[in-house]
C-alpha cells in the first residue's frame, strides 16, 4: 500500500510538471508535424511505397519518433533532480528504489503517450480530410496505442538507466544523441527495411524500434513487402521482451545509483 502511494506521488509530480511546462508539450508536437509535412511532402512528391503515399508511410515512423525522443530524453530530468537535492528527498523517503523507478517510468510514459495521442488525433483529422491515407478503426487505434505504450516503457527505461548513471545533463545529451539517431534512422521509420544489405540490415533487425514501427505500419496501412513485414504477434513479442529487459536493468541501475 505504502509503495503504491509513493509511486502515485512520483507519477503525480511528473504529470503536474508536464502539464505546466507547455513549451515542452508544444515543441514535442510541432517537431513531428514538421517532419510529416516537410519531409513527407517533399519526398512524397517522387516516392511512394505500396498502395499509399509517402506521407502515410511516414506517419507510423513519426509516432515512433515522438515516443523515442520524448521517452529517452525524459531521463535527463533525473540528472537535474540529482543536481539539486530533490533526488535526495525522494531517496530518503521510506520507499523502495524499485518503486521509485516504477513511479518515474509511469510518469515519463504518461507524458510521452499524451504527446503521441495528440498526434493520433491530428492523424485522424488529416485522414478524414483526405490528406493522409490511413485506416483508422477502433482496432487499429487500439493496437497502435498498445504498441506505443509498450515500446515507450522500454525507451523510458533506457533514458532513466543512462540518467541514473550520469552526473551532468550535457553528458546525458551527448550519449543519448549517439543512441537515438541510429535507433530512429535504422528502424524503418523513414524508409522501408526490406531491401538493405549487410551490416545495416543486421542493425535494423536487432533494433527493437524496428518491430514497433513494423507492427503499427501493418495495422495502420497494411501488410506487404514495403509495409508491415512481420507477423504482428512477433512484433509485439519482440518489443515486450525488450521493454521487460530494460525495466529489469533499470530496477537494478536504480538500486545501484549513487549520489
Amino acid at each position, binding site marked *: *500500500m*505504502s509503495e503504491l*502511494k*509513493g509511486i*502515485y*506521488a*512520483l507519477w*503525480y*509530480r511528473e504529470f*503536474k*510538471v508536464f502539464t*505546466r*511546462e507547455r513549451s515542452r508539450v508544444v515543441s514535442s508536437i510541432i517537431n513531428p508535424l514538421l517532419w510529416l509535412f516537410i519531409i513527407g511532402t517533399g519526398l512524397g512528391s517522387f516516392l511512394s511505397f505500396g498502395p499509399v503515399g509517402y506521407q502515410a508511410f511516414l506517419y507510423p515512423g513519426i509516432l515512433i519518433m515522438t515516443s523515442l525522443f520524448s521517452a529517452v530524453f525524459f531521463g535527463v530530468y533525473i540528472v537535474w533532480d540529482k543536481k*539539486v*537535492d*530533490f533526488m*535526495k*528527498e*525522494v*531517496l*530518503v*523517503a*521510506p*520507499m523502495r528504489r524499485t518503486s521509485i523507478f516504477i513511479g518515474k517510468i509511469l510518469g515519463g510514459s504518461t507524458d510521452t503517450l499524451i504527446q503521441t495521442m495528440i498526434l493520433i488525433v491530428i492523424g485522424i483529422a488529416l485522414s478524414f480530410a483526405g490528406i493522409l491515407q490511413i485506416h483508422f478503426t477502433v482496432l487499429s487505434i487500439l493496437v497502435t496505442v498498445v504498441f506505443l505504450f509498450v515500446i515507450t516503457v522500454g525507451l523510458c527505461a533506457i533514458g532513466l538507466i543512462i540518467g541514473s548513471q550520469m552526473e551532468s545533463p550535457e553528458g546525458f545529451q551527448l550519449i543519448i544523441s549517439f543512441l537515438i539517431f541510429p535507433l530512429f534512422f535504422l528502424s524503418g521509420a523513414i524508409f522501408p527495411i526490406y531491401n538493405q544489405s549487410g551490416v545495416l540490415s543486421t542493425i535494423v533487425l536487432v533494433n527493437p524500434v524496428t518491430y514497433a514501427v513494423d507492427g503499427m505500419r501493418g495495422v495502420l496501412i497494411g501488410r506487404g513487402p514495403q509495409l508491415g513485414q512481420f507477423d504482428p504477434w512477433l512484433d509485439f513479442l519482440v518489443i515486450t521482451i525488450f521493454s521487460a529487459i530494460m525495466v529489469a536493468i533499470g530496477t537494478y541501475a536504480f538500486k545501484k545509483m549513487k*549520489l
Partner: protein
Amino acid sequence: MAAIIDIKDLTKTYEDRTVVDHLNLQIEEGEIFGLLGPNGAGKTTTLLMLTTLKPPTSGTALINGFDITKRPDKVRKSIGIVFQEPSTDEILTGYENLKLHGWLYDMPDHLLKERITDVLQLVNLTDRKDDLVKRYSGGMRRRLELARGLMHHPKVLFLDEPTLGLDPQSREGLWRYIEKLAQEKNMTIILTTHYMDEADRLCNRLAIMDKGKIVVLDTPKQLKANLGGDIVRLKAPHLDQERLKALPYVKKISPCDGELCLTVENASSHLQEILTLVGKVDSVEVRIPTLDDVFLHYTGKALKNSDAQGGWTSGPMTGEANE
C-alpha cells in the same frame, strides 16, 4: 535520558582518503546539536550516512534504536531532513510539494491535510501555499523545506546548513522556528553550519570536526570558557612576543590576520600592564571570546563568509558535498 542517536566507530573512506574517521557520538533526545567544521571536515558525509543515503565503510549508528546499515527503512521513517541545496520542486506549488511528501511517507489523507495546515502555519506560509515555489524568495523556500521535513513528525531532524545564503532577517526567523520545534515537539535536531553565531544561539551542545574526527565537544558556553580568558587583539610596530609570553596571565599568543591575538585572563585589569610592555600601539581591541575564537583555536582555521557561501558556486563546498 536515552541517546536517540548513537554513533559507533562510523567511518567512510574513499580510495586513499578517510573522510569520516571512527566517529563516536551520542546525542540525547530533545537536544539541538551542532556539527561544525571547516570545508571537507566530513560533516555532510556524516549526515549522508546517518540519513542512509550513503553506506558507511565501517562502523554504524543507531537512530531511534534502529541500525542505519541493517534497518534503513525504519531509520528513514524516524528522520526528516532539510538538505543543503534546494530540494523542493519549483514547478509545483508549496502545497503540492507538501502533499507529495506526505504521499511518499504514506500518510493517510485526513492526517496529511491536518499536518499540512499545521506546518504551513508554523512557518507562516499559509497565504502563499498555492503559489509556485518558483515565485518564493530564498527564505520562504527554506521555510517550506523545513515545514516539509517536519510533516511526518520525525524523531530526529537533520538540517544541513539551514540558513546558507539567507539574509539576516530570514535567518533570525528560521532560528525562531527551529527553537520552537525543539521546545514544543521535543524533536532532536542535528544541524551543520558555517555560522558561529547560529551555532551559539541554537545549540545545546556542539562538536567541532576536522579531518573526519571530532576535535572537541561541549556546550557553547563551556567551549568559550575553556579558552581561559578574554581576547586582546594588538597591532603594534614592535612586538616582543617572548616578554608577553612570560606574563602569568597571558594564556596563549597566536597571530591573527597579521596582528597578534592574546588570550588573557581577566583582560580588563591587566590591559594597562600589557600596553606598557608593548609600548607604542597602533590599535588594540579587548573582547570576550566568541565561538569563532573557539573554532580558530581548535582547527587553526578562521571561518570566513566567502567559505560559507561556497556551496552556491563551484567552490570547495561542492567538493565536500560530492565526497
